[in-house]
């Protein structure tokens, strides 16, 4: 049996079928959609849990997850392209080190302008006073300082005890640590130590020696006598054959396989490291330098708002309020980041050392100033890598580093 369909009916039916595809999603639901660009992989990652918990509350705002990469640089690249195309992210996890770039180039919004001074104050008041300035660039609050990590030592407790070392020993200085690492290496035959070769860990050494990478006026000072002393302490285990230099993914894989005794890395890497490690793992605070005050640094990201649409800005505020709440932040802490809020949340097992390090005071990650700040960061890492590989002496390398970065900052 055949049935004739009129052209008019056919057109209407086709339009009805095509509508969900063609029409913008926001027009179909009443909720304000706020997309959150981030770099966290996995359906079970706490960021997904936080978003789901918020969305389930039915506040009239739906936060949509957009994982646009696995590094801060990658998601920033994509954000830049999408902002240029007029479809920028409403919110984005922005690395501390990219703060200047986010404010001046990407157009991260001033919270006081989009939320008003009182609401901004109410939101940020839920965070500890020492972390609040970290997401303020030039005094302008542009982010929620929600993700803070700090370098810690990951100890393979099985190798540690096998080497006859005190299972509870927590060396306070590298002078105490290095002989222990030597003992571990000699007794177990495994590699004693591995440091990350990047800009972040050497910053801890430079600061703990009393120096700085870039001073408060934005001037590179990484070749000061104190900074040289710090980097000398950093590369010493490489010279003593206690540390075989490798890339960070190689280091993590080798550590997880139980082939390295002690690894220095971000406290936020903990959940990933624990997933594959088949041995007892203990985290202790990063050792400082003998006779000098500790001045450890932090890392991580802040949550910035890039949307210029009022509804989305208000939606972002609601989501941030939820994150800052005890319920939201408790879920977020599953990442391994530190409790930087004033919420009374018990420290998660494994996070004790990092949390204690934070209580002792942390500085911000180096923010690379100027239009060529990101290039300066690459140049700095290159010089650090040359120094670590012994291609250049510490004073000579840091001096060349400073000269190169001065040029880039001035450009």
């Amino acid at each position, binding site marked *: 049996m055949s049935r004739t369909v009129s052209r008019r009916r056919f057109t209407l039916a086709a339009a009805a079928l095509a509508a969900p595809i063609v029409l913008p999603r926001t027009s179909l639901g009443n909720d304000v959609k706020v997309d959150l660009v981030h770099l966290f992989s996995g359906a079970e990652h706490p960021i997904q849990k936080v978003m789901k918990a918020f969305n389930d509350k039915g506040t009239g705002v739906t936060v949509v997850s957009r994982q646009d990469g696995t590094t801060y*640089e990658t998601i920033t*690249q994509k954000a*830049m*392209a999408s*902002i*240029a195309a007029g479809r920028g992210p409403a919110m984005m996890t922005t690395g501390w080190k990219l703060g200047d*770039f986010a404010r001046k*180039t*990407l*157009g991260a919004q001033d919270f006081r302008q989009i939320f008003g001074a009182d609401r901004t104050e109410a939101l940020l008041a839920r965070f500890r006073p020492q972390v609040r300035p970290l997401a303020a660039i030039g005094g302008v609050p542009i982010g929620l300082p929600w993700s803070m990590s700090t370098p810690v030592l990951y100890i393979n407790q099985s190798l540690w005890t096998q080497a006859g070392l005190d299972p509870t020993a927590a060396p306070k200085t590298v002078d105490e640590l290095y002989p222990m690492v030597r003992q571990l290496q000699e007794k177990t035959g495994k*590699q004693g130590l591995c440091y990350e*070769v990047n800009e972040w860990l050497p910053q801890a050494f430079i600061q703990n020696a009393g120096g700085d990478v870039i001073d408060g006026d934005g001037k590179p000072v990484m070749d000061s006598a104190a900074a040289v002393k710090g980097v000398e302490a950093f590369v010493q285990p490489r010279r003593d054959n206690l540390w*075989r*230099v*490798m*890339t960070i*993914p*190689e280091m993590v*894989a*080798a550590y997880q*396989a139980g*082939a*390295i005794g002690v690894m220095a890395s971000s406290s936020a890497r903990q959940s990933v490291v624990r997933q594959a490690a088949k041995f007892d793992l203990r985290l202790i605070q990063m050792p400082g330098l003998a006779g000098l005050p500790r001045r450890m640094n932090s890392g991580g990201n802040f949550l910035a708002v890039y949307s210029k649409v009022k509804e989305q800005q208000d939606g972002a505020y609601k989501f941030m309020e939820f994150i800052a709440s005890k319920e939201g932040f408790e879920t977020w802490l599953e990442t391994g980041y530190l409790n930087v809020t004033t919420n009374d949340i018990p420290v998660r097992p494994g996070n004790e050392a990092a949390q204690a390090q934070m209580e002792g005071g942390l500085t911000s990650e180096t923010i690379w100033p100027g239009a*060529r700040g*990101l*290039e300066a960061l*690459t140049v700095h890492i*290159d*010089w650090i*890598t*040359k120094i670590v*590989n012994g*291609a250049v002496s510490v004073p000579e390398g840091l001096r060349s580093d400073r000269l190169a970065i001065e040029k880039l900052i001035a450009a």
Partner: protein
Amino acid sequence: MTTAWRRAWRRLLGSPWLFAGPAVAAAVLFVWLPMAATLGLSFFDWSLLRQEATWRGLDHYRGTLANPDFHLALVNTGIYLLALLPLQVGAPLVLAFALMRVKAKATGRVYRTVLFAPSVLSFPVAAVVWLWLFNPTVGFLNTATGMVGLPPQRWLSDPDLAIWSVIAVAFWKSFGLNLLIFLAALANVPSDLIEAARIDGASAWRRSLDIELPLISPALFFAVVTTFIVVLDEIVGAVDVLTEGGPYRTSSNLLYFLYERGFRHFQFGEAAAVAVLIAAIVAGVTWAQFHFGERHVHYD
């Protein structure tokens, strides 16, 4: 439809532009216009997010040509080409001749599949395997070399070794395509010519060298020209996944340098200048390949 319209329509139907038009439009839109825009951009400071651009004249070209990282990338590109061009063309060529002599069809198919398989893998997937093989502490390579008493190596983080590790992975990953081209070309060599040479008493070596090789020279020439471009281009994937150009740019190449300028440092004007320089280099070398290489190609 009026007669004039009909006539115009008929003329259009008979016109070559009807067939060439879409391809030309696509080429203009996606190749020539972006190339022209890149050339223009290379004289400006410009950001994706800023409406205005600042005129910089030849500054980006001067800056790039004076940049030691560019020099290093240029030298590294030369090393990549000198190492990979003979490997990517020579090894598949030898293997293709060998595979053509495998009598059992099933065995031949297995060899071809195994040898071509790496080419269909994406670099990120292949890199996961290679990162494990290269691991200086728990990797297979150091375990294997350790068994014969060699010291462990830092395959990806030693500035003298990193580039060679990338070359090894790029070779493993990409040589299958040329193998396929050579196998197809060898399969098309008329069997009566080979048979005649055999009857005349030519050895297998002479038949390969004097008959098959000249007859597949167009394929060989094609492989040389495209491999040059592919090596420049494809190596970026291996560099990015394995070393990110490090340690301290020692495994970077020209395209990775361009990528870093544009998409890591967001210096689009400079990146455009680098792109123009690379295009000039590629055009120059390709011209030289055609000028000096094509005379050895037998199309008949």
